[in-house]
């Protein structure tokens, strides 16, 4: 954990704060097909999560004991589970649990991480040292292990589990936030504000936070994907959403007890739903990052143009790619794939 984090080094020396208009205009969404498809899928899942009671053909906890582990039919689109509940309706309701859980975890991590990072970065000194020590020691836990320990303490349940996951995410947010604050607070406009007698809270909230927040937004998007996986895993282990609530992880856990007899679709549907949603959220996070980082975005366009030109000229040269500098990533290297990794499974 001593490696310098990429987040720490993301600083520009411009005097003027970067424009926020890129984010507001949502240009980034329409610039790239991948992002459009991903957004489409996430919106579908959100729609299903919100309107599940209206679109589900059956009650997700109503049992029909005369039809157990049935295959797909016109009555039951995806068949029934081991106690005769409509699997399709449970899938729709499961979207609710996953979305709620993931948003809860990310909110908790932001509510802890942002203030801690702001204080550590702005105040500095002993307070910064102590805070960052704590942050580092929490980063020493494999996230899922700490989350399981916290769930054991708080008691199982979706809310407790996802609060626990949020707590395990918060050090990464705090670290990134601190790095951003350190990079921002030496800018001229912050100095100017201070010279004009702006109170500390105003300097922080009005000048530092808005100019340091963009990578945090990207981080939030990427953490959302990890939280989604963590929710599924904890519910699968029986520590998250409790029966009879329908959750994708919990449904997989039940299907797994009847692997040899349950309809195959009941093993694939929840897993694919989780995988596709996580993939889509990750893709959105990546596009958002590229759009907020003008250099990477321009370079990508440049490569596309060069590749197209090369093709048109009939040249087989692809050398352009080799000289592409590494795209800066926003998440610190020990978190970006790994938050992903740490909490997943």
């Amino acid at each position: 954990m001593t490696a310098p984090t990429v987040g720490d080094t993301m600083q520009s020396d411009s005097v003027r704060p970067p424009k926020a208009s890129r984010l507001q205009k949502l240009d980034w969404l329409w610039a790239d097909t991948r992002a459009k498809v991903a957004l489409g899928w996430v919106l579908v899942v959100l729609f299903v999560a919100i309107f599940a009671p209206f679109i589900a053909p059956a009650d997700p906890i109503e049992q029909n004991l005369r039809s157990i582990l049935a295959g797909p039919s016109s009555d039951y689109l995806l068949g029934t589970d081991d106690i005769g509940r409509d699997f399709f309706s449970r899938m729709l309701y499961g979207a609710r649990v996953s979305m709620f859980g993931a948003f809860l975890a990310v909110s908790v991590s932001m509510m802890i991480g942002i203030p801690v990072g702001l204080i550590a970065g702005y105040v500095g000194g002993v307070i910064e040292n102590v805070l960052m020590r704590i942050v580092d020691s929490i980063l020493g836990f494999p996230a899922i292990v700490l989350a399981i320990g916290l769930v054991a303490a708080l008691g199982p349940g979706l809310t407790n589990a996802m609060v626990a996951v949020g707590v395990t995410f918060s050090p990464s947010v705090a670290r990134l936030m601190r790095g951003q604050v350190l990079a921002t607070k030496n800018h001229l406009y912050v100095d100017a504000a201070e010279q004009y007698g702006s109170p500390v809270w105003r300097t922080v909230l009005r000048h530092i936070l808005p100019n340091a927040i963009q990578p945090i937004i990207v981080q939030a998007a990427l953490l959302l994907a990890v939280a989604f996986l963590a929710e599924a895993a904890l519910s699968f282990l029986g520590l998250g959403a409790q029966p009879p609530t329908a959750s994708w992880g919990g449904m997989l856990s039940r299907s797994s007890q009847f692997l040899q007899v349950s309809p195959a679709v009941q093993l694939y549907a929840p897993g694919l739903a989780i995988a596709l949603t996580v993939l889509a959220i990750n893709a959105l996070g990546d596009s958002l990052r590229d759009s907020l980082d003008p250099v990477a975005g321009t370079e990508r366009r440049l490569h596309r143009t060069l590749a197209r030109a090369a093709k048109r000229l009939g040249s087989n040269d692809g050398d352009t790619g080799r000289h592409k500098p590494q795209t800066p990533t926003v998440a610190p290297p020990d978190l970006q794939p790994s938050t992903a990794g740490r909490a997943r499974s």
Partner: protein
Amino acid sequence: MLRLLATRMAAIIPTLLFATFTIFGLQHIGPADPATVVLGENATEERIASLREQMGLNDPLIVQYGKWLGDVATGDLGESIIRSERVATTIKTSLPVTLQLVLSGVFISVAIGVPLGILAATRANKPTDVMVTSGSAIGVSIPSFWLGLVLITAFAINWKIFPARGFATPGDGIGEAFRHTILPAFVVSTSGIAIVTRQVRGAMIEALSADSIRTHQAKGLPWRTILWKHALRNSAVTIVTVIGLLVNTTLGATVVIEAVFAIPGMGFRVINAASGRDFPVIQGVVLTYVLIVLAINLLIDIAYRIIDPRIQ
């Protein structure tokens, strides 16, 4: 080198102290009273009160922590509440199982991820690269426990090639150990492969864009030598960093996968302990995980300096 080791060890102490305090504090942040957990909900109030006294629960928190830490330092992690077994024994039997799985997973991640990353870097932005990059995006998005279930259905139920559940160590015969390890180790490494591929690709693209590479090319070195000798060496720091990260990731991944494959490792134990609020086991196992992560971080730190003397 010894001095370096000493300073790094000293730097770990505050981290370790806070981590142990967190682990100790776990059983105190929840609504459940530890004495009630031991005796069950139906115990009389007098019995609970006397056990509280006996367990030292009436002492100030910091005194309790001191006592606990003292016991832990001498290797006494207490006794499981659910099974009558010393926690130290639990860890002694489950740690090798988890380590076998983690090491196999890390090995697979590196063995597949590094070549894939290099391949993608040398063909940056071409179809091969796009395929590898998309593959690694999928790799971090698949819930590993689900992949485990799918593979069990395919390779253990449909084609009975590998066992669906249980585990074997090399002590039970190398062949048996291999048969039991291969599926869970592969599942555990899916996100690892993706992570390694991504990071190695990035590092190699950067290394290959260095001026020195052009010089090597100009003086006529074969491309293979440039790639494997010069560029790879310049990405070594990244690769070492990734391996450190990978151990942490893989450790986390094993927790759930041990449950899927019913492997009696530390993850399996900690999940059972969590449902039963068996705090001595939770504390012991979580502490072991943290110690492993800290030890790996220390090793990585030292490895940096060996690989790249420029790092101070």
